[in-house]
């Protein structure tokens, strides 16, 4: 196999497409497995000796200090995470007092383990202090026999000092430790009674007790160790100068280092001024104002996540221990944070609160990301270009380098801001807790709540979220391009170093240093140990020349790029040598590091050396790319609260007090949606915290606590997020569905508008990295959405089931809103189909069942409430609830959150005001809703049920009618004209002697009313369906080529040929297939076939029948059974007038009865029956073929005729027209009304169910009607007709 160069092989990988469409809305989220990077100097500077600078003593000391720093940090985390054991110790009940000794022993053993750790810390600090002191003494001997201290060495001293100070500070702050210790001591005295030889142990205990109970014990000890020999002042001064200059320059420092320097400076000052010698020498080298400035600028310095330091407070406290220092009144009058006068406090507040800087930060972020991206693009372009120009390449890489440096500085500044804001907040707890808008204001607040939960306003939280997301996004942006930029960075650093040692130093050697032999030796040493004279000599000649040409013009000599950075040891040595040059190896030299006017080096050269010196310091951060990014974006400290946990005496704070969660919550609760895409950023804080707990603090229990909080928090987050998403889409849908004219005329239509929110980024997240797990947020949301839509449907149906039939319009409206919301959400999320969910919730999945939850609800509602309790008004075509019946008891209407209706409260009330318009009656709009909601699937089922109801009712009233027939007198003649109206009415009353059967009468009337209601209902349904069908027809007719003919017949416009849709597709197919470029002719053939199928299907659907006609035919068939009873064939063959007991006669009697009742003063029967009685009665009469009989012989018609005649005769005789008919006005009026209504019904029936045809076609014995319309598909309805009693 042929060998492939590594570079090419790797480059080939980039041909893979690795886009995963994941938006960058979370932090880096990587579990950083921090290998020891360049800044840690992996080989412990063992390569330093190779440069033969006689630094072996210095290196040894340096490594020793570094080891101590490492140990010290571990001690500090032990101390920081120390939790009191005493609280967990059990107490014995009285009954077990005899076992007290055993308990003491056990307790002692448990505590002994903890105390041994403290003992270890005590021992360690003693040895560390003495080692540090010895180290300082050794390297500050004026007669200097050894090289050093190097700059790295100085740094190590400072860092170790910092560790010691921190440890001391922590020991002072942790109250539980002395507490635990005193318990320990008590158990020891109890237990040790029987032991021998406890003196040494006791002594040790006393020692430890003194150590633990003395404030600043470590520092005091260090002081003693240091001043054993009186020559550490010099090195202390050097350290102070170094610290002050570094802080003032503030270029090469990242925030962790800056905080180290800030923490040690006050202690250094105290130590330096506490010596026997006159302390004024310090202020000769460093003006006191410079110190005061530094202390003033940073009044609070973060030390531990929830513990801060204040230089002023530390110095004040230390005066009691360092008497000499008490004379430094200028330093001691600095106010500690809690003593600040109001005005200054406000100044600091302005400085510390992120909210005052977020505008600038935002601008910085936007600017930086754009420029960074463009630098990246340039770099990618460069990489993809072969044989690019050397200068261009250098420029692009240099630009990238600059961007990285800027990025690090930005990140460092930003993260430091968060640290410092936290420290400031911790130093100033919220005093006025009640002001804060917390709901449980009655509860008292813990200290931690005062400094965190109540101490951040909403605005501050939002600013914090914003800053966190900037840090995290810039961090992950930089983290991602690590390997891409690495070689460019190396190359640039290499070039910088080479430029300095090969060009700048060469110039210096030639000019200013020519005469100074010592100094020039050092400079040439610098060249020796870092110059790369023969870099990249494998470049081609021509390239070499061309580039050399450009190089020669500007610079003395040219060197070739090489993508290798200097090692940490090289940087270390270079810094050491520069320091040697400027300081002359003399610690006592007055003045600063570089700011020395008395130096023998020209200012210009000094400046160059200084710049390079600090640059070298920063190179290490850049070379340690991933570690630096990880350190700078680590916000894990936001979670930790060990110090407050202890002082609050609780095991853990609730999640509401946790700062990361507060940030998440703030985003979710905030009405402004701008931050929504940052909502995952605070979760990355948990990643950082967990990492810290495991790697830095090394405490499993902390990790467990974080994990528990994350689990809990993420659950809440997902459910709250889903709630927000659902509500948002619901209100969006509802506001879109709101009547536009209503919105137009509404005074404040804005409240119905929905603020747009961007969820689509969050909805794309399939991998949220959380504590090393990958969570598919999208599928979680999908799952919940599927659930909540179903719940919403369920709720709507439940709600409908608790209301009457009139609520169907509201139900439809709400379902529409829900459906539209589903549609809107489906654009971003693949949730289940709405129809599927609807069917599921309607229990309508089965293929063989046609009833649905809604249909059966409508049916049962009709049966139990609508038909008995609603009355018809023929004029308005509406059914309304009768006022005379007591309303049915229904379960109370369930209530739900606003988002189960229309989203927001405002939209709910808007929609409700529409729904209210339809809640009082049942009419055409309701029928439309029913038709739409039930659809062609369940509607036939409902129709069938209603028809059965008719047939049942007929069967039910049949025996009652028989009863009424029986009690009719043998004969009832025509009403005589001579008696007038009064006599006639009396006669009718006498004849219809149903007095004892009033119950029966009412029952029959109710039955007829229900039949009439059903039939009228069918009529409404018919209107609605016809309208729907017509619409459908209008849409399909042009495609099917149908035109209406002259007599309402539908004609085919094309004779025998294909319909337009078919021919269109056929011709298209033919055209496409014939063209040579057609890629897939088969699919066009399929389309043409499908068009034919569609044609057939739509044509078959055209001739739907009329529901009303069908219902009438059905009723007629149902009546056939009773024909013999209700419509007896007269024996004589002539019309039977007097003895007939046909249905019309019964109905006549019933009608006049209820008309009479209706005109009585407390009128009630009409209120109870409405117009549907007429519909029921007349339909039966009509279908029995008795219409003409009825019109001739009906009692009220006869009375009306008589009244007419009477009135006419009265007019003729010119008498008082009201003489005879007096008192009957109302009744006559009612009769006229009834006659009009009856006529209306009859004419409708004639139109919809012509009797001639009926007789012509007849209805089969089986019940199947043979009509002009064939209901072939519903024949089964007749076959299964319950022929009750047959």
């Amino acid at each position, binding site marked *: 196999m042929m060998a492939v160069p590594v570079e090419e092989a790797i480059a080939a990988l980039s041909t893979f497409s690795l886009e995963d469409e994941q938006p960058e809305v979370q932090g880096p989220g990587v579990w950083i497995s921090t290998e020891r990077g360049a800044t840690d100097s992996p080989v412990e500077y063992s390569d330093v000796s190779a*440069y033969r600078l006689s630094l072996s003593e210095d290196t040894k000391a340096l490594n020793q200090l570094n080891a101590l720093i490492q140990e010290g940090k571990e001690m500090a985390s032990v101390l920081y995470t120390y939790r009191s054991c005493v609280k967990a110790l059990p107490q014995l009940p009285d009954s077990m007092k005899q076992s007290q000794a055993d308990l003491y022993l056990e307790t002692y053993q448990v505590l002994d383990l903890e105390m041994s750790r403290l003992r270890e810390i005590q021992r360690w600090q003693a040895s560390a202090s003495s080692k540090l002191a010895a180290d300082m003494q050794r390297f500050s001997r004026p007669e200097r026999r050894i090289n050093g201290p190097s700059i790295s060495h100085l740094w190590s001293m400072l860092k170790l000092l910092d560790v010691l100070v921190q440890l001391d500070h922590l020991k002072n702050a942790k109250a539980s430790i002395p507490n635990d210790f005193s318990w320990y001591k008590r158990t020891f005295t109890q237990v040790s009674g029987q032991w021998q030889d406890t003196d040494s142990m006791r002594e040790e205990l006393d020692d430890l007790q003194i150590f633990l109970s003395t404030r600043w014990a470590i520092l005091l000890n260090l002081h003693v160790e240091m001043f054993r020999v009186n020559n550490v002042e010099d090195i202390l001064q050097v350290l102070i100068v170094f610290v002050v200059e570094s802080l003032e320059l503030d270029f090469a420092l990242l925030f962790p280092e800056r905080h180290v320097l800030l923490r040690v400076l006050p202690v250094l000052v105290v130590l330096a001024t506490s010596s026997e010698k006159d302390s004024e020498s310090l202020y000769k080298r460093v003006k006191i104002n410079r110190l005061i400035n530094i202390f003033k600028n940073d009044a609070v310095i973060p030390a531990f996540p929830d513990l801060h330091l204040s230089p002023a407070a530390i110095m004040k406290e230390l005066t009691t221990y360092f008497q000499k220092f008490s004379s430094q009144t200028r330093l001691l009058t600095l106010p500690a944070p809690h003593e600040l006068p109001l005005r200054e406090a406000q100044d600091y507040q302005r400085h510390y609160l992120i909210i005052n800087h977020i505008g600038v930060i935002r601008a910085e972020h936007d600017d930086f990301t754009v420029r960074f991206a463009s630098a990246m693009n340039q770099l990618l372009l460069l990489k993809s270009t072969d044989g690019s120009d050397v200068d261009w390449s250098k420029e692009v890489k240099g630009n990238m380098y600059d961007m990285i440096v800027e990025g690090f500085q930005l990140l460092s500044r930003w993260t430091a801001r968060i640290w410092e804001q936290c420290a400031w907040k911790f130093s100033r707890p919220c005093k006025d807790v009640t002001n804060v808008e917390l709901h449980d204001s009655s509860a008292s607040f813990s200290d931690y709540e005062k400094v965190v939960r109540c101490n951040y306003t909403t605005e501050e939280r939002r600013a914090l979220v914003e800053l966190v997301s900037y840090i995290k996004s810039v961090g992950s942006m930089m983290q991602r391009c690590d390997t891409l930029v690495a070689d460019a960075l190396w190359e640039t650093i290499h070039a910088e170093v080479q430029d300095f040692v090969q060009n700048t130093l060469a110039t210096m050697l030639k000019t200013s240093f020519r005469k100074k032999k010592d100094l020039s030796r050092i400079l040439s040493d610098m060249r020796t*140990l870092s110059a*790369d004279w023969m870099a990249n000599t494998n470049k081609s000649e021509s390239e070499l020349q061309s580039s050399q040409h450009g190089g020669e013009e500007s610079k003395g000599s040219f060197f070739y790029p090489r993508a290798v950075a200097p090692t940490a040891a090289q940087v270390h040595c270079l810094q050491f040598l520069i320091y*040697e040059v400027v300081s*002359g190896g003399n610690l006592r030299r007055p003045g600063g590091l570089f700011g020395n006017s008395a130096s023998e080096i020209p200012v210009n050269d000094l400046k160059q050396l200084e710049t390079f010196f600090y640059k070298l310091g920063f190179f290490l951060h850049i070379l340690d790319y991933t570690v630096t990014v990880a350190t700078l974006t680590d916000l894990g400290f936001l979670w930790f609260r060990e110090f407050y946990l202890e002082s609050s005496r609780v095991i853990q704070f609730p999640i509401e007090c946790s700062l990361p969660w507060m940030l998440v919550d703030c985003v979710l609760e905030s009405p402004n949606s701008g931050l929504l895409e940052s909502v995952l950023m605070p979760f990355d804080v948990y990643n950082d915290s967990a990492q810290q707990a495991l790697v830095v603090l090394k405490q499993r229990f902390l990790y467990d606590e974080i994990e528990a909080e994350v689990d809990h928090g993420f659950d809440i987050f997902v459910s709250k997020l889903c709630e927000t998403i659902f509500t948002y889409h619901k209100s969006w849908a509802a506001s879109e569905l709101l009547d536009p004219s209503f919105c137009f005329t509404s005074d404040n239509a804005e409240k119905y508008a929905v603020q747009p929110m961007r969820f689509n980024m969050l909805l794309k997240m399939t991998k949220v990295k959380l504590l090393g797990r990958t969570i598919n947020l999208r599928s979680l949301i999908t799952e919940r959405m599927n659930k909540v839509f179903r719940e919403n449907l369920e709720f709507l149906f439940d709600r409908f089931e608790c209301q009457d039939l009139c609520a169907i319009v509201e139900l439809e409206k709400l379902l529409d809103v829900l459906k539209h919301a589903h549609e809107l959400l489906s654009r971003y999320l693949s949730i289940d189909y709405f129809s599927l969910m609807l069917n599921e919730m309607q229990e309508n999945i089965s293929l063989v069942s046609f009833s649905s939850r809604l249909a059966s609800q409508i049916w049962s509602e009709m049966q139990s409430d609508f038909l008995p309790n609603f009355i018809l008004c023929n004029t308005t075509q509406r059914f309304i609830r009768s006022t005379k019946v007591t309303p049915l008891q229904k379960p109370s209407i369930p209530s739900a959150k606003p988002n189960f209706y229309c989203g927001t409260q405002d939209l709910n009330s808007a929609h409700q005001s529409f729904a209210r318009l339809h809640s009082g009656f049942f009419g055409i709009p309701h029928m439309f809703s029913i038709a739409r909601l039930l659809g062609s699937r369940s509607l036939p089922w409902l129709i069938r049920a209603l028809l059965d109801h008719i047939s049942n009712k007929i069967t039910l009233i049949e025996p009652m009618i028989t009863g009424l027939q029986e009690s009719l007198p043998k004969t009832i003649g025509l009403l005589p004209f001579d008696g007038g109206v009064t006599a006639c009415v009396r006669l009718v009353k006498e004849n219809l002697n149903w007095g004892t059967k009033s119950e029966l009468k009412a029952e029959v009337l109710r039955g007829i009313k229900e039949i009439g209601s059903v039939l009228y209902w069918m009529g409404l349904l018919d209107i609605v369906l016809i309208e729907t069908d017509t619409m459908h027809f209008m849409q399909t007719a042009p495609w099917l080529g149908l035109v209406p003919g002259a007599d309402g017949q539908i004609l085919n416009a094309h004779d025998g040929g294909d319909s337009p849709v078919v021919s269109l597709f056929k011709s298209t197919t033919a055209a496409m297939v014939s063209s040579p470029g057609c890629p897939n002719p088969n699919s066009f053939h399929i389309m043409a076939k499908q068009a034919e199928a569609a044609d057939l299907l739509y044509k078959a659907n055209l001739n739907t029948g009329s529901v009303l006609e069908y219902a009438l035919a059905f009723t007629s068939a149902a009546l056939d059974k009773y024909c013999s009873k209700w419509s007896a064939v007269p024996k004589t063959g002539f019309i039977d007038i007097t003895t007939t007991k046909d249905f019309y006669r019964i109905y006549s009697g019933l009608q006049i009865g209820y008309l009479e009742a209706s005109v009585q003063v407390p009128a009630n029967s009409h209120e109870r029956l409405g117009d549907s009685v007429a519909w029921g009665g007349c339909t039966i009469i009509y279908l029995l073929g008795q219409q003409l009989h009825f019109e001739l012989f009906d009692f009220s018609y006869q009375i009306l005729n008589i009244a007419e005649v009477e009135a006419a005769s009265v007019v003729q005789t010119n008498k008082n027209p009201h003489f005879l008919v007096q008192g009957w006005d109302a009744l006559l009026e009612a009769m006229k009304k009834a006659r009009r209504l009856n006529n209306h019904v009859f004419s409708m029936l004639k139109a919809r169910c012509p009797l001639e045809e009926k007789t012509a076609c007849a209805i089969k014995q089986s019940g199947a009607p043979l009509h002009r319309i064939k209901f072939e598909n519903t024949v089964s309805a007749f076959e299964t007709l319950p022929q009750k009693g047959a």
Partner: protein
Amino acid sequence: MARAGGITNAVNVGIAVQADWENREFISHISLNVRRLFEFLVQFEATTKSKLASLNEKLDVLERRLELLEVQVSTASANPSLFST
């Protein structure tokens, strides 16, 4: 005054430093490419995961639909008499 020691054998050190630059060029070249390879693998995994996730999502939807269809078919086949006519 004792100046810093100075390099004792400057020529040898210079040669060694030069050789060191070259050696380290090779080392950093290799290690960078190994890191790139590693990064590629990580990214490949991430991409694959999200592709699988979207595939899974589609399958989920299909599965639910299939479940529904199965239920429907089972309701139908439980009543064969309906189809006999």
